């Protein structure tokens, strides 16, 4: 039995606990990410038709929250400029070190799923001219091919490279 354990606080802990509200925000956001991801997966992967109306929205929501879930963690760090040290020089006995890799994998997975699920919309939005359609052209990956060839033709690369070839 420790009779005074509840009363006595080590002097370094008197300034407050080390992990505060920013650490609590992170699981709250990832909870939203995981929940929305499950809803999206139930329709897209497991074919639950009743979730069709919200499946696409849930996926977009999952990606959006996932992209910013680490922001509170970044704000928690006392040396935020060194945040990527977790991935450059991880110490694998630390539970936190694996986090960077698992999180990146999750975000990549979501990004790929978004690209595939929203592909028809991306292609549609890529038509025409302007900054917005240019953005969607980049996202569409394949649609760009034709335009890229035109661009190369315009540069007349053959004429430039011909002397080099000889």
């Amino acid at each position, binding site marked *: 039995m*420790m*009779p*005074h*354990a509840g*009363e*006595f606080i*080590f*002097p*370094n*802990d*008197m*300034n407050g606990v*080390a*992990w505060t509200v920013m650490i609590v925000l992170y699981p709250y956001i990832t909870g939203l990410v995981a929940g929305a991801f499950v809803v999206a997966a139930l329709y897209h992967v497991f074919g639950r038709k009743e979730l069709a109306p919200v499946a696409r929205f849930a996926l977009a929501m999952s990606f959006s929250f996932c992209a910013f879930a680490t922001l509170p963690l970044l704000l*928690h*760090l*006392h*040396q*935020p400029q*060194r*945040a990527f*040290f*977790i991935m450059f*020089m*991880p*110490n694998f*006995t*630390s*539970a*936190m*070190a694996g*986090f*960077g890799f698992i999180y990146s994998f999750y975000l990549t997975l979501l990004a790929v799923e978004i690209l595939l699920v929203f592909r028809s919309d991306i292609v549609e939005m890529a038509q025409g001219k302007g900054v917005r359609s240019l953005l969607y052209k980049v996202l569409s990956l394949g649609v760009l091919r034709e335009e890229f060839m035109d661009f190369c033709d315009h540069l007349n690369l053959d004429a430039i490279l011909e002397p080099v070839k000889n």
Partner: protein
Amino acid sequence: MKSALFIEKADAEEVHTGKDGKEVKGHTVLFGYLVDTTKCIGCGGCMLACKKENDVPDGQFRTWVERYVYYKDGSVHVDVNTKGTFAFTELPPLDAKEVDKAFFVPKLCNHCVDTPCIQVCPVGASYKTKEGVVLVDYEQCIGCAYCVQACPFGTRFINTKTQTADKCTWCYHRIEHGEKPACVDVCPTGTRTFGDINDPESEISKALATNRIDVLKSYLGTRPKTRYIGLTAEVV
């Protein structure tokens, strides 16, 4: 049965690489620290010396002295002088009629053999030197405070000046030149002993061999190299 305090001692005839890169025959250095709580008078000179030597910010402590007061009604009260003044004069005086007994317990980093803080550091900024001293690389620390959470002895903190994790280094900048830590140097009663526990002739080895030794929270199995004489069950 193997002792929970067991630390593998180096072979005296072992061959190892010295500071200049050449092979040296003889034992490797393994530092240890011994606190004799029966000698501490609670003056707090060690806290002031540590603060001065290591530029520790106000309200944060690499070492501190706890006062355990046992009252006649059976209750135990623990307090620490956190004001950074000499002795416990900042705290209200005790009434001798009510107090059964009282004593002081100096605390500092335990430089454990099996360290929770090094285990949890995500970037490897916490590390152990070959002399067994646990240090923080202030250039590498990201300030996540995971180690502050992990240390069961409350010895780590986020330094408000450097914004990185910080802790007692046993004054590594002094001991690597053969000096003693600042707290050991200033202690007027010889409460604190520091030295090489691999050297059987050192002051600390003799003290460890001839006294009843305990460590803090031995049930956690971290095997601290900061050891104590005169602990009681109530000391956390």
